[in-house]
């Protein structure tokens, strides 16, 4: 398949078992280049587990993950990161004891060795994320909104082809949500970044995403455009209807 039409990423029947619990069961989906794909589902549905499988933190029990045409199911995390697959963490997503600047430095240094070019890259990251004012603050001292943005900055520092964001807007007020969405859209427009996002703020997800996957009890319940998902009776029953 030529590179342009090939999906950037594909999960093929991935399954993850923790002892007796099947956290993710036979899930298949593709992510096209340049897409912003949403992954929604109630707490415990298996969203973070899918992130951990995609990014190499967990090994799949069955199935495989394919990134840019290559089977990456058994690659270690750091190698996946270096070939362009990055993720944020739902919890503790920062190097808390380090300054904002050092967080971004550490995240950039594996990708650019030349100090002058690294500086340039870092300023670019800092500009897009709007972190210029807080560079010398310790990450743990930042207000919550800045902390979540910094975790996106860390993952984006290597300019990944696929960026996976695990609940990036949690705890944001309305203005912050708009700012966060704006940043994510800019990453796609200016850097052609493909995004997979888990987020509980339904209004944000519906306005941001091209397509949405719905996960329930570790299984894929359905997928479609935001309108299709919002009008699918099975999905409303399982998730949307109850939570909104």
């Amino acid at each position, binding site marked *: 398949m030529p590179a342009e039409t090939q999906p950037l990423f594909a999960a093929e029947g991935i399954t993850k078992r923790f002892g007796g619990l099947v956290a993710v069961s036979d899930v298949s989906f593709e992510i096209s280049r340049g897409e912003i794909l949403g992954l929604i589902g109630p707490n415990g549905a298996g969203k973070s587990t899918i992130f951990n499988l995609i990014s190499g933190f967990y090994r799949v029990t069955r199935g495989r993950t394919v990134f840019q045409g290559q089977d990456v199911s058994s690659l270690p*995390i*750091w190698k996946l*990161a270096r070939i362009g697959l990055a993720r944020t963490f739902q919890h503790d*997503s920062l190097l808390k004891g*380090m300054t904002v600047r050092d967080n971004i430095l*550490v*995240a950039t240094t594996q990708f650019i060795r030349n100090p002058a070019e690294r500086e340039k890259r870092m300023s670019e990251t800092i500009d897009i994320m709007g972190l210029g004012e807080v560079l010398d603050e310790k990450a743990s001292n930042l207000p919550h909104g800045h902390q979540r943005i910094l975790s996106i900055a860390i*993952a984006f520092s*290597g300019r990944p082809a696929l960026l996976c964001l695990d609940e990036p807007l949690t705890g944001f007020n309305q203005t912050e949500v708009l700012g966060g969405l704006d940043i994510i859209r800019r990453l796609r427009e200016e850097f052609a970044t493909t995004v997979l996002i888990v987020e509980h703020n339904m209004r944000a997800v519906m306005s941001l995403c091209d397509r949405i996957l719905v996960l329930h009890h570790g299984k894929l319940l359905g997928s479609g455009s935001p309108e299709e998902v919002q009008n699918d009776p099975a999905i409303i029953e399982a998730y949307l209807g109850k939570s909104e």
Partner: protein
Amino acid sequence: MLFDKLNLLFLATVAASVAYCLAVPGAFFVQVILWATLAATLGAGIRFVMLVGELNIGTSAFYGIGGYTAAYLTTAYGLPFGVALVAAGIAGGLVAAVFGYATMRTSGAYFMLISFAFAEIFRMLVVESDFLGGNNGIIGLFVSVEYEPYFAATVVAILATLISALAVIENSSLGKSFIAIREREEIARSVGINVLAIRVLCLVISSVVIAVAGACSGFITHLVTPNDYTFMIAVFALAYVKLGGEEHPTGPILGAILLTLAAQYLISFGAYQQVFFGTVIAVAMILLPQGITGRLRDLVRLTAKRTARDAG
């Protein structure tokens, strides 16, 4: 700001020590300076591995590998001081690479116990090795007579340079990667850091420096024995770090100087030396959890706040 001043104080102390060693090479105080320099290097070396979050009791073994490499090469092959130092550093680095690759997948209490076992195995191997002199060790590490007057000053200069090199690395992007691994390993991995390789590298760098210090220790006493390189060396080093403070590179140096002076002038320990150092670690951790440098920094901040408040 305080830390900048401490850096300056470090450089001034080194310059004064080198000058003193050159001016009165035979004085007893030169010996004290040399002991303090070795102690400071041990403290800086053990703290360096603490950057990736590990306590390396095997520090004593790398110190010993340096001492024995230098002793063997000078007595068996008559190699000069400078070559012996370089060889000691290489030996320490190579052993650290193998040991680290095999063990740095573990962390915390597990790594500490394994490194403790390594320290003991090293000592037992030396005791059992006839070519290393067994329990009697190796005697006869000397620098040439014409070089003798410059020896102490050279040791201080070399080890101070290595300590500074550790501090420079700590401040580089590599050093930040060490700290990132300690802070949260998952994030380090997720940004492309090969955590095992970087942890091993950290151990190797520390061990090269420790081994060079070990070689110097052999030339200072003209003798190496298994008893000079027991795990207590690592306990002393930890005492320097805990007393002086862990946050800044000058912490263990301050701790090393204070404890060396105390050992020389204040208290005659005899058999109680180990009890004393153990007590220092315990008391420092209770009364000065951030060490002296950390306490100083807090005081400076407090004073600054007070001044600001009084002014405003």
